[in-house]
């Protein structure tokens, strides 16, 4: 379970104080697919970076399965990112000179997994995200945008994280590929019982998630709760 408690992040800009995240609180049950929508500059990415321990809040706390991130030293936050968090970025952010399978193996290498085990798992994950087997050994900069995003999702799943944070995962993809990606995230959330939080400005994409939040001027409000897309009966 992810608990966000009165989270605040403020910056100084000259004489002004900006609060892109201003008292945000919510909870997400394990295995939930949720989305946060909002305009550009509304603080979506800032909120995501706080949840992923890439940035520290001015106040408030994030509690993951009962463990508070506030006050954890940098080394523990790195461990938290490695073990509990998976990131999916709009620009994919893969390592361009590595193959798809090598990219997926990276987080497992950082976690100390043996080479044979991580190779096997990487190939399995790439199959799950439906990347053609012959493309698994290809350099990622030779793959299409949709294929790269599939590799990025496989990489996010590498260490079986508790929470996947996806920042505009379909922003660089055409509509049809974007649909495939969100369906993939939905099925992975269901199959792996992984909590996925998608930040997007695309309302149609957000409508396919179970819980939908809106971030406006640093304040978060929940719009609706609906059954999971493709959840079936």
């Amino acid at each position, binding site marked *: 379970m992810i608990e966000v408690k009165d989270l605040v992040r403020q910056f100084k800009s000259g004489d002004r104080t900006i609060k892109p995240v201003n008292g945000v609180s919510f909870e997400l049950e394990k295995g939930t697919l949720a989305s946060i929508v909002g305009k550009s500059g509304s603080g979506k*990415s800032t909120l*995501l*970076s706080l949840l*992923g321990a*890439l*940035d520290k809040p001015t106040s408030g706390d994030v509690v993951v399965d009962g463990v508070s991130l506030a006050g954890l030293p940098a*080394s523990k936050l*790195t*461990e938290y*990112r*490695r*073990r509990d968090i*998976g*990131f999916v*970025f*709009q*620009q994919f*952010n893969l*390592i361009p*000179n*590595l193959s798809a399978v*090598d990219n997926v*193996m*990276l*987080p497992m*290498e*950082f*976690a100390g997994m043996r*080479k044979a085990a991580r190779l096997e798992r990487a190939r399995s994950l790439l199959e799950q995200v439906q990347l053609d087997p012959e493309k698994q050994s290809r350099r990622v900069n030779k793959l299409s945008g949709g294929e790269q995003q599939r590799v990025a999702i496989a*990489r996010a799943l590498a*260490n079986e994280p508790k929470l996947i944070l996806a*920042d*505009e995962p379909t922003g660089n993809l055409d509509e049809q590929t974007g649909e495939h990606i969100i369906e993939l995230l939905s099925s992975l959330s269901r199959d792996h019982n992984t909590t996925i939080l998608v930040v997007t400005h695309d309302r149609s994409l957000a409508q396919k998630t179970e819980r939908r939040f809106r971030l406006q001027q640093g304040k978060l409000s929940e719009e609706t709760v609906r059954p999971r897309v493709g959840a079936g009966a």
Partner: protein
Amino acid sequence: MSVLARSVGNAFRNKIRTAAVVAVLAVAIGLALAMLVANQAVVGKVQELNASVGTVLTVNPAGAQGFDGGGEPLTTAQTATAAAVPNVVSVVGMKALRLQTETAASSSTTGTTTQQAGPGGGPGGGTSVVTNLQAAIDAGTLGNRNNTSGSTGTGSTGTTGTGNAGTAPAFSLPITATGIGAEVDTAGKALNITSGTGLGDYTVASTKALIGTTLAEKNSLKAGSTFTIAGTTFTVAGIFDAGTTFGNNAVYTTLAEAQALAATPGELSSMVVTVNSMENVDAAKTALQAALGSGKADVTQGQRNLQTAVSSLDSVKNISLVAFIAALGTAGLIILLIMVMLVRERRREIGVLKAIGARNRTIGVQFVLEALVLVALGSVVGAAIASFASGGIASALISSNSTTAATNQRGPGGGGFGGGLGGGGPFGGASQLLTSVTASASPGVIAAGVVAVFGVAVVGALVPALLTARIRPIEVLRGE
């Protein structure tokens, strides 16, 4: 994929840039290695000089120089006095003989004659005895001219009293024979025995002898062959190469044997005294002169000009060391700047690696290894450059310094660069010593240089590697 494999892959991401970086590094590393090779060659030469001729003093009887002069001979007892002087590490007594060929002796009135004159240098107080050997040097113009002047004056061929300046007989050059107390030549330098063995114990009488290469060839002798001196049969124990025509027209016996041949037991023609270091030579010379007495012995430092040579080599050594350090520093700086550039260029990638859980240490090690891959490539090319260029660079450095040394030595009045014993003898030219330094890129020196280069590269790569720790992964998302 391991960190090392990833580092190697990263090093070749941009092949053109990698080639350019390796080329620049290779020049710096090659220069550093060449300077190290030159430095080591000069250090070796300086040590060799300091260990031999540069620290040698020669003691002659007071008033005697070569085969000229007079006075009282030195004695074996004086070697103990000399050995007690501070900083003296060894004293070798010498007894010089001049071997007359049988042809020359037949025109002489006696078989054994004390000699007083004779150009060409060599320890004073020589005694002539007859040998069946033939001299390896033809008299030529110089020999005949010297013989003529000698026969009218001091009787170099033993014709005093019976010589006729107008009808001098066919002249044959004498052969230098020296009794030695240790396996060194008359300049105190270790004998280079090219075949056979040494004489063993040089302090006891023995009918074994060492013979110069050209003298051996002239007389068709080899190790084990025999010849006679004053009717005594000697066996050739070994053949030596003195490096000069004059030096190879010589015979060495044990000191005791030479004294017995001359019938002057306990008498020395000269002593070769070795001082522990060049810095102590002047003090030792003064102390030695005082200990032996100025009326009994003349102490000379024949190779004083070698000090200039060694001093010149020292400056080459210092220049090459400074250049080595500078080139090494340049290589380190190149690595530093390249890696800083790469870290700046890959900030986003570093942020991503951190976002997915890489430790700062892991990323730092990756960048250090990447730098070392570039350095390894640069070292391979640099070592090849050094192996070809080190000889030329060393020669250029040495010739530049020997020119300076020569200019300084000549002074405003000009004069020769040669000097030392015998004026142009085997150690007469400091310039010869300078140019005899050969810089060869030995694997050991190259390996030591490469280790130093890697050490500097690690330091150079650590700074940018530490910079990666300051990159915050949030910057990746901000850039989205």
